[in-house]
């Protein structure tokens, strides 16, 4: 947090990239205000805003009462009058307590009134930490199915940094899903590219291949890459597409890749039924049907809540092994 990290730096922890993006954007724009439970003196449950109170003061780094709906509503109202609020959910799961403000007030405001709502909600989500049913959920598709929201889900420090700054600059409500499992495990360079002033659809080919396309985001992109590495040793070349931005969706990029590889699988940590993997599969089956040479497969969490016990949890989250075996099936090997 202490240094301006908008210039290139090597091997930044994912969690530090988030802190840096917040700090840099607060330095650049005095209308940026942080709100959340325990973010001030304590620096937040994950210490992402440690030191912020000292640097930015208690007017811009606001501890809130435990009131997600009220807090998000206040963020919305203030954003309509020139404030750029960034609201931290202590865990992504708690967003359900502020759901109505997001889907009915924030998401629809611009369409209804042509009044922008520049608002970011940070959502530390996902599993792998043995944190149980209410601290591990992957709920992005509730919001992807709600027109008017942008949704971001970075897998890398660089994207985490760049997209958080862009999200704050974007005049729309942006849900920024950050993955807790990656906080202290993912470490990679920040980028030097100038930060864009809004979130646009992006898909990025992390590994190109000829045999099958995979689409994933967040933690699952890392696991998919592990699987691709394993399969590569078996002579199977996977084209791994990461979606740092889920909405708007760059589906062109996905379709183009599938047209090349003729096979596709979507890997996500969210539960299967009604999830965003279905959306991607549906688009492929509408627009790339003639290219397909295998079923389009979703590799996901089963349709049940996250269990507390680590072994139980581990058995639910798509593993590199499970991804490999499903992809092999699709390739009929």
């Amino acid at each position, binding site marked *: 947090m202490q240094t301006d990290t908008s210039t290139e730096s090597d091997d930044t922890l994912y969690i530090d990239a988030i802190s840096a993006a917040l700090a840099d954007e607060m330095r650049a724009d005095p209308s940026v205000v942080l709100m959340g439970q325990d973010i001030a003196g304590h620096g937040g449950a994950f210490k992402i805003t440690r030191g912020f109170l000292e640097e930015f003061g208690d007017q811009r780094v*606001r501890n809130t009462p435990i009131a997600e709906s009220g*807090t998000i*509503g*206040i963020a919305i109202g203030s954003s309509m009058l020139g404030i750029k609020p960034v609201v931290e959910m202590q865990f992504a799961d708690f967003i359900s307590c502020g759901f109505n*403000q997001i889907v*009915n007030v924030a998401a629809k405001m*611009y369409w209804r009134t042509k009044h922008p709502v520049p608002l970011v909600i940070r959502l530390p989500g996902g599993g792998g930490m043995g944190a149980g049913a209410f601290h591990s959920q992957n709920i992005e598709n509730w919001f992807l199915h709600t027109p008017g929201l942008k949704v971001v889900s970075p897998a890398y420090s660089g994207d985490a940094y760049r997209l958080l700054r862009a999200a704050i600059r974007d005049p729309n409500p942006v849900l920024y899903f950050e993955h807790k499992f990656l906080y202290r495990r993912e470490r990679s360079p920040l980028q030097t590219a100038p930060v864009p002033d809004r979130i646009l659809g992006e898909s990025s080919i992390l590994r190109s291949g000829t045999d099958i396309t995979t689409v994933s985001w967040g933690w699952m992109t890392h696991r998919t890459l592990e699987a691709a590495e394993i399969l590569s040793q078996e002579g199977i070349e996977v084209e791994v597409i990461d979606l740092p931005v889920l909405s708007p969706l760059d589906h062109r990029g996905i379709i183009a890749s599938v047209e090349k590889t003729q096979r596709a699988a979507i890997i996500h940590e969210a539960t299967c039924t009604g999830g965003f993997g279905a959306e991607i599969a549906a688009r492929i089956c509408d627009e790339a049907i003639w290219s397909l040479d295998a079923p389009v497969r979703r590799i996901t969490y089963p349709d049940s809540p996250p269990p507390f016990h680590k072994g139980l949890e581990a058995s639910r989250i798509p593993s590199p092994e499970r991804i490999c075996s499903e992809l092999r099936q699709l390739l009929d090997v």
Partner: protein
Amino acid sequence: MTDQDPDTAHSRKPNPGTPFPSKPVSDIESTPHPAASETAFGSLKEMHAYMRLAREWDLRFEKMFRTGALSKWYSSVGNEATTVASACAIEAGDSLLTLHRDSGAILRHYLDINALLPGILPQVPAIREPMGGDSKQRFLRLTCQMLGREHGFSSGHERSYHYNLFEEEWGLFHIGMISHLGSMIPVAAGTAFAYQQQGSDRVAINFIGEGATSTGDFHEALNIASVWKLPFILVIENNRWAFSTPTSQQYACDHLADRALGYGIPGVQVDGTDAEAVLSVMQTAVARARAGDGPTLVEAMLGRHRGHSEGDDSLQQVPEQELQQYVEQDPLDLVEKRLIDGGVFSRAWIDEVRERCASLVTNTVDQAMSMPEPDVHQPRSIYAD
């Protein structure tokens, strides 16, 4: 007022840290507002004109509903004293958040009635400055909005009071409702938060029905607003009924204003049919908010005059005697009686004000009705860019 230079008017300065325009905080401590005490009938005359305009507005749309020209209407009849007086207590630069029975506040806040009906407020000193800008255009657009016309604020995409009107150059910041009751309370508090954050002395007021006091957002917003001492006034229009539900099935306390104690803020119950009483309470609340002393909860006691929405049978739930009592305590009758009894207005002038307001509304509605419907092929973006 309508040809004021935007640059010298109550323009909002969006830079954080810049205090908001108009009076500095220390000037506003006198309570109630001087206008109310000094010229006893001045405020009453002014409120009367806007209340009458609001009444004619509603009567006109009620009629359109009955003749089938309108598919739905929520009447504000009976709420005018509360809404008009409240809007008299705010100024340019303040934010206003309304519900479905707040035409009085909207009309008072948006319009310079003298610009629309020249001479209707001859020798009255203003309680507050009328809003700058083009009142006629605003009134026409407002009417178009009610009628789902392209020229309305939402180009037909949103119904009646579900729209925003922001005219930054005049300090007009009006955020309309969404249907979900209670949802706009935190949003209103959020506009107050923006003012606080920007070092401005502007305030936010928000109207809700007593039904919305049962929602979680009522509590979450009031709690945060009180902890943060936001310049926010929440006005409960307690008309004793929520759709078909009486207060006895909505809450169990004696006065909703008592909930203020649980937030450590002032709570005031006031006769919402008495425009002068409401004005005084609201001026105190606004002064408090401007001074940085935080929110106030105001409970304006009203009575149900109409069904929940026109054409439904929800009024059947209201005992006949109770209904009659409310109708007898019509806020417009009250204000007119005071003006006549005080020898300020003649019955003839009262009638003339009514006539002029009625024809203004009729003419504007007629004009709006002749304006185009939205173009169904025109796309509308869900994202700002």
